[in-house]
């Protein structure tokens, strides 16, 4: 028996999200009286792998093969399912991010394991196994019972605290055979923006809506994001109009984010927009309309013209941060 946690790497490195899911898996293993095993797929150096032990992984499996540098969903599923069987995994934990969403469902069918997706906390009960998850795009929650023997959980980002336990973990290296005949993901080109904070990883997000009036009014938002070390986002009309790239659209059909601070500038806050940002720890709203629904979801608000308020806000941030 074990809890197996799949850890993705980004150019050989882990990030906060990794330590969140390892902390979660290790807490869950403790409740189940078993151990947490981390499975890393692809090339990661020992020094980086060792970090997983700090967050409670008792064993670290490093599965490598040059082909695993590309995410082929079938190949990855095979690798994870093989180790899940070998290690007698009772629960498999993944992040509820792009990769987790690509792999968890395939694993579910491969192992006949029910999924609790996007969970934010430990199970409500272990027998029966019941998890708590958001449904109807954040307008409700559900208690979901997973009936299968093996369970898969995908953990929502920034929902579980990183816990350092200081274990020393053993590292097992495995050279993996890849079934070439099912490797079908041929990457032609990679377009990556370096040095930019990934929106879904950002602790602080500055988001602009139609209240910004024109794409020409974006520089103050960019400046504010720079000052606070945040990422930029926008509402749906802004991305539909082509003022900003669709990668920045947060909301039900865009990115679902959960930063510590979300600053909505000139965004009225439709149900669909709130669906994408309601897990933010703090929401600040700046809007000219005092009845805008965004204020019902915000902890702090300023009523007024966003374009006029922004320069003053930037000055205030500079002043306070400069101290």
């Amino acid at each position, binding site marked *: 028996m074990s809890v197996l946690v799949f850890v993705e790497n980004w150019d050989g490195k882990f990030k906060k999200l990794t330590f969140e899911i390892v902390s979660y898996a290790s807490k869950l293993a403790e409740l189940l009286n078993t151990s947490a095993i981390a499975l890393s797929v692809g090339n990661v150096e020992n020094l980086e792998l060792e970090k997983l032990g700090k967050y409670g992984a008792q064993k670290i499996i490093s599965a490598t093969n040059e082909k695993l540098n590309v995410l082929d969903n079938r190949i990855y599923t095979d690798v994870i399912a093989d180790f899940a069987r070998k290690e007698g995994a009772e629960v498999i934990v993944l992040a509820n991010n792009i990769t987790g969403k690509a792999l968890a469902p395939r694993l579910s069918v491969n192992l006949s394991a029910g999924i609790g997706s996007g969970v934010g906390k430990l199970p409500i009960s272990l027998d029966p196994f019941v998890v708590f998850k958001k449904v109807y795009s954040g307008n409700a*929650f559900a208690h979901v019972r997973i009936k299968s023997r093996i369970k898969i959980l995908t953990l929502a980002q920034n929902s579980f605290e990183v816990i350092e336990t200081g274990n020393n973990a053993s590292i097992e290296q495995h050279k993996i055979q890849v079934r070439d005949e099912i490797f079908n993901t041929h*990457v032609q080109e990679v377009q990556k923006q370096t040095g930019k904070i990934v929106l879904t990883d950002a602790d602080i997000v500055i988001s602009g809506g139609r209240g910004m009036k024109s794409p020409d009014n974006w520089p103050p938002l960019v400046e504010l994001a720079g000052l606070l070390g945040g990422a930029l986002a926008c509402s749906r009309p802004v991305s539909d109009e082509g003022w900003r790239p669709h990668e920045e659209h947060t909301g039900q059909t865009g990115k679902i984010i959960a930063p510590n601070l979300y600053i909505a500038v000139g965004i009225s806050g439709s149900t669909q927009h709130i669906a994408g940002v309601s897990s933010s720890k703090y929401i600040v709203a700046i809007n000219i309309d005092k009845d805008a629904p965004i204020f019902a979801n915000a902890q702090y608000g300023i009523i007024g013209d966003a374009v006029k308020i922004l320069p003053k806000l930037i000055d205030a941030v500079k002043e306070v941060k400069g101290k």
Partner: protein
Amino acid sequence: MKILVCISNVPDTTTKIKFIDDNKKLDTTGIQWIINPWDELSLTRALDMKDDAASGVQKVTVAHVGLGSSEPTIRKALAMGADDAIRINAEPIDAFFVAAQLSEVIKNAGFDIILCGIESSDYNGSTAGGMLAEFLGYPSVSSVSSIKSENGQIIMTREIDGGKEIISMPVPLVAIIQKGIAKEPRIAAMRGIMTARTKPINVSQPITIESLTEVINYEMPKPRAACKFVDPENPKQLVELLQNEAKVI
């Protein structure tokens, strides 16, 4: 080339969600049902591909797991331009059940490209598409924001953290579709609505398969505390609250 688009029937995204029977069931009174937004965008892209003669797409079919009550949603897909539809006559219990049913009707039907929305706006599981691919033993690509066909290969853009990858893959495949695939959903024209009435919806009976999960009950979110307003002339107060009270900057 044949495309299949899997569609789910969900409450309109502006619906005020309420529950009945001790919070065990959704109160469907007055709910407007729509095609799941991501599925609608997938269908729009499939139809755009069919309109482009160079893409080699001859036919677009939609498939749905649901009871007769969801036929208006299927008709809407036909009105948008799908050629025909398959309805598997079963209450969709969970994503595993739905994917298993879909794989039964798809496995020998010769579809080249299967499109699934990345998420449904009701259960928010993001699981049916990947499950379907595994049932079928097909390759899958997730978080796809563009797709086209070129010399028998399918070229897709998939999102990765902080960027994108352009991928080619042979058919048959399952593409799991996110935002960006089409600018706006296609709107059914009057002629489409008329012809949709006579397009075939092939109803098939479900296979017996156990679901792996079940919803025990629902709960409404707790209301947030009231918003604290700051004087627009003095945004410094906001910065101080964020620093000293919320401690987030």
